């Protein structure tokens, strides 16, 4: 996070939430610009490792969003995602990761307003929590705070 603004990564499904976010834009609804969108075909494809990758590269918060249950473009992808999220949340919580940095939502292609409200709310929450300095960062050549001994 830069001095002021949280970096939030959103993993969203192409058919619902991504389209919904498009609608937010075409409806000229202004909302917090802190989100970096990553478009995937379906929430069922979202590997929990992607969330860790986001945090490992400096994200302060993560949103995962897709079609409402029953509306998945691929019929059942979001049902599988839902179970995976439940288990992954338990693991994160047990490890002591602050669950307020990870948000899950169902946002349909028609819910442009909901997307804006969600992003605004999550951004405000993450800003209040501050930068995510606890999470270990990827060794990718960026200056590291501590040199390997």
């Amino acid at each position, binding site marked *: 996070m830069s001095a002021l603004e949280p970096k939030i990564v959103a993993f969203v499904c192409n058919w619902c939430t991504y389209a919904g976010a498009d609608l937010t834009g075409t409806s000229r609804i202004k909302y917090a610009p802190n989100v970096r969108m990553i478009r995937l075909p379906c929430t069922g494809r979202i590997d929990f490792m992607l969330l860790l990758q986001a945090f490992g*590269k400096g994200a302060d918060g993560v949103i995962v969003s897709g079609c409402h249950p029953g509306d998945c473009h691929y019929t059942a992808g979001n049902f599988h995602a839902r179970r995976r999220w439940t288990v992954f949340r338990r693991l994160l919580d047990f490890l002591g990761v602050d669950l307020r940095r990870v948000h899950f939502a169902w946002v349909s292609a028609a819910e442009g307003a909901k997307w804006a409200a969600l992003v605004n709310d999550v951004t405000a929450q993450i800003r209040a929590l501050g930068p995510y300095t606890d999470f270990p960062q*990827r*060794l*990718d*050549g*960026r200056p590291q705070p501590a*040199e*390997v*001994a």
Partner: protein
Amino acid sequence: MTAQRILARQNLGPLFERIARDGRRILAPVRRGDRVAFEPVTRPDEVALDYVQTRTSAKSAVFPPYEPLLRFTLRGADVQADEPPPAAPPTVLFGVHPCDAASFATLAAVFTWDSPDPPFERKRANLTIIGLSCTRGDAYCFCTSVGGGPGDPRGSDILLTPLDDTHFLVEILTERGQDVAQLAGPLLEPHVGNGKEAALARIAPRFDARPLAAKLPALFNHPALWQEQSLRCLGCGACAFVCPTCTCFDITDERDRYHGVRLRCWDSCGLALFTLHASGHNPRTKQSERWRQRVMHKFAYQPERLGVLGCVGCGRCSRACPVDMNLAQHVQQLAETAV
């Protein structure tokens, strides 16, 4: 060049202070719960002086689990690469047992045998080793089978032997040891008499490693023998990682689109994909072949090619192995096997 002195245990604190004032950090065995491991310390009361052996070795002081070799940045069509300054703080490794002190000779033989290895060499150059003789061992120790012993001075710059609860015999063995002795000044008192032998642990030799360099190659094509020994091996890699003389490493890049770092990381010849070629061929597909490699590398190839044994008899591999692969038992069996 050996000079002998006496150091009172109560003077360890002042000794540590003098070492610290000279700008050196001290790594020593520290007990946490039921584990002892090498950690930076400042006071002697942090140090576990009565340990038999640590789980992981002190090789991290010169060959850490991972270290950066290069950092690189892509700018357009250009790659800018630079070597990060190596982390090689002046260090005193305090309280390693003679087996571990001897292991540094094997590490150096591997890392410096043909080309310079600055990350290793700079750390080694800044390291002084104060060894601690063993007053007791356990069922896994076999230093005396591989040319070492509980009071063996090889590899130590200074070797301490506890003579009783209050005093150490101090043997100053090298120039680096002399430097620290000079720092210690009056803390080291003149020594009269002996007593080292009586204080040492009794470790009966179980085999003689010296003939193995010639004998083991003759056992290379005995697949049943190697399979028998390694059938319970899970191929996990723990033995190589805890071993003070194992040097296998992997070089891997961690990067994003424009920045990256090239790392050297620990690896193990016991892992199934260690010898996987880019072509897809793997010359060692069976665990028995990998086990054979481990034994022969330590007891035949390294002595033959580098003039050092690849094992110091510390026993860590056998203590750490989840399925009780006992190297001393296995090598003893090989020593007793007719060719």
